[in-house]
């Protein structure tokens, strides 16, 4: 028997088709795991209420609080410092909806609460072969496990709550093959920023990306999540990496993953989740990992990237000129040396334990520059616990940075964690759009190492000297290694 070779995307798609698409109607696609948060779910639950509908499979939906939640602790009366009453009401609304509809919520006080795309994987809810959706465009993160994961709107959140299904047209496929070795001091964030710079901020529109090649294989799960996370910054709703031993080792023993023999059986089935030899992609792009430098954005969308050692473009393109003007660059200016006001380490792109370790390795024994305000926001309660166990919170505080409670924080800047108008922030988040981190704020996207190095230098700088040399112990700095 001969069968057509299939891509990983084909296999994931085919396994979840309830009814196939026709010219007149999209496919009905079954959803295995639905993640919800307080910002994009209230109107969906209201729709269920208006129609008198239950949640079809409440056990397949998990809720968390992350977007509009404060990252400062509660006051002496137990009151959390919400940015306004509406934000508090939004959290209360999700809590009430989860209770009424029988949906599990990782609430305050839960050791599992965190940013939705950090919590799912670390609990082992995210597994290879699943379809995963969330009312959040960075759902692409979960594709790092070989799951078809994409962001949806609030109407679709309602569709999934009520029917566990979505109406979908099949996307086209884009293979991005990254071979070669990343240079020392160059990481997953540099890699994905470079990729977006190559294919463009709309280069993946209409496509599902599969990241392949030896450079991808050599990444840890946390690094793979950073890569897939930013697929949407290239316009692609989903990014995929085929699961392998790295994936299986990450998942083994996670509380919501299969346990014991069931896990071994699952691994056997997951091994089939790879693109067959000879499968066709609609488009293919090849990138040489060894050419990638520490990379940052200079402009107002994530495709406007540059090596940290290079210069902003000087041409006459109107959009580039507008971006330069907003960001306060002269045409052709060197990126390195620009003064920095704020540094943010956090977000679903870069708030996992390895990201915080990377930032801490730069901060250890050093001080944040006096003109810089630096926030370090762990992605989840679990990341926070593990980081504190290692003493990362001490390193951060001793360096003069703020160590906060888990949440989306300054990435989406809707909880009161803001960058001021005209200030320049070096941020490990995923979007540098105008005003993303506060009205008039200027954002430079970077890796955790680069962000931490910029915090110490007080200006945009190449992180590599900070990664290879450790400062002599200073009297004021405690070198803590718990």
């Amino acid at each position, binding site marked *: 028997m001969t069968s057509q070779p299939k891509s990983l995307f084909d296999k994931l798609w085919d396994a979840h088709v*309830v*009814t196939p698409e026709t010219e*007149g*109607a*999209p496919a*009905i696609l*079954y959803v295995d*795991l639905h993640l919800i948060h307080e*910002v*994009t779910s*209230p*109107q969906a639950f*209201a729709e269920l209420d208006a129609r008198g*509908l239950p949640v079809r499979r409440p*056990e*397949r939906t998990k809720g968390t609080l992350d977007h509009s939640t404060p990252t400062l602790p509660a006051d002496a009366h137990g009151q959390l410092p919400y*940015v306004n009453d*509406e934000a508090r*009401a*939004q959290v209360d*609304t999700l809590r009430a909806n989860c209770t009424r509809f029988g949906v599990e919520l990782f609430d305050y006080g839960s050791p599992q609460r965190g940013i939705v795309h950090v919590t799912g994987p670390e609990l082992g*809810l995210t*597994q290879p072969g699943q379809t995963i959706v969330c*009312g*959040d*465009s960075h759902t692409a993160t979960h594709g790092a496990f070989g799951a078809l994961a994409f*962001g*949806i*709107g*609030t*109407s*679709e959140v309602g*569709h999934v709550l*009520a*029917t*566990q*299904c979505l*109406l979908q*047209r099949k*996307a086209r496929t884009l293979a991005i093959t990254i071979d070669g070795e990343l240079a020392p001091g160059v990481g997953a964030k540099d890699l994905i920023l470079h990729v977006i710079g190559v294919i463009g*901020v*709309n280069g993946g*529109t209409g496509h599902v990306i599969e990241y392949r090649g030896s450079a991808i294989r050599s990444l840890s799960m946390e690094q793979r999540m950073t890569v897939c996370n930013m697929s949407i910054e290239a*316009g692609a709703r989903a990014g995929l990496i085929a699961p392998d031993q790295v994936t299986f080792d990450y998942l083994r023993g996670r509380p*919501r*993953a*299969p*346990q014991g023999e*069931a896990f071994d059986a*699952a691994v056997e089935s997951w091994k089939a989740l790879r693109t067959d030899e000879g499968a066709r992609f609609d488009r293919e792009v090849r990138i040489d990992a060894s050419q990638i430098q520490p990379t940052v954005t200079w402009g107002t*969308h994530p*495709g406007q990237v540059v090596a940290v050692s290079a210069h902003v473009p000087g041409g006459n393109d109107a*959009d580039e000129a507008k971006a330069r003007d907003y960001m306060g660059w002269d045409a052709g200016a060197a990126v390195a040396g620009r003064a920095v006001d704020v540094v943010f380490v956090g977000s679903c792109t870069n708030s996992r334990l390895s990201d915080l370790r990377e930032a801490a390795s730069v901060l250890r024994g050093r001080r944040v520059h006096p003109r810089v305000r630096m926030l370090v926001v762990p992605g989840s309660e679990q990341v926070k616990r593990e980081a504190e166990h290692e003493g990362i919170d001490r390193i951060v505080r001793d360096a003069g940075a703020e160590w906060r409670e888990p949440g989306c924080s300054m990435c989406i*800047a*809707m909880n009161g964690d803001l960058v001021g108008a005209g200030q320049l922030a070096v941020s490990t988040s995923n979007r540098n*759009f*105008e*005003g*993303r981190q506060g*009205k008039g704020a200027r954002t430079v996207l970077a890796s955790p190492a680069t962000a931490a190095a910029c915090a110490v230098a007080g200006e945009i700088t190449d992180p590599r000297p900070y990664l290879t040399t450790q400062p002599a112990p200073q009297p004021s700095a405690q070198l803590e290694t718990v």
Partner: protein
Amino acid sequence: MQPLTEVVSRTVVLRERNIDTDQIIPARFLTTTQRKGLGRHAFNDWRSLADGSPDPEFPFNRAENIGARILVAGRNFGCGSSREHAPWALTDLGLRAVISAQIADIFRSNSLKNGLLPIVLDEAIVDELLEKPGVELRIDVARRTVTLPDGRQVQFPLDAFAQTCLLEGVDQLGYLLKQDRAISQFEQRRQHQEFRHAS
């Protein structure tokens, strides 16, 4: 959803490429639990001058554009986040169609669920429209055509299902709910595959 068969209106033009959803509706206005009322915050940070007063030059602040139903924008409109608040804000402003040379995937999907018609036309045609704000266009959903001021008619792609939903005001959730039997059969087929989430 109300049926949408035709849009006849002058155009409002935003020439910028890559207008993202953070521009359409900044995140700090997402703390609402309602769908309505977001129009007053649409393009909030582009509408005002540094002193906070309305920018008289910004297209949506100009008197002649009040009530306009068609937005023409630069390539890759609606990129960024999945917030459905973006089409909610635009329809709350009175818009019924967005024309661009490229429209981002999630924004397009969200728009179609809210009676906002995303229209992708050839770059050359869009460039003409970007050059001449305020021209009157006629959009015919059944024929998938835009009639330009000089009488030319240009076709635009529109998924057949999306077209039916717009023309007949089909409620997509209602459509999905009617597929309950097929969904149950699918769930039974997969029942032997253990549901792996610990309870």
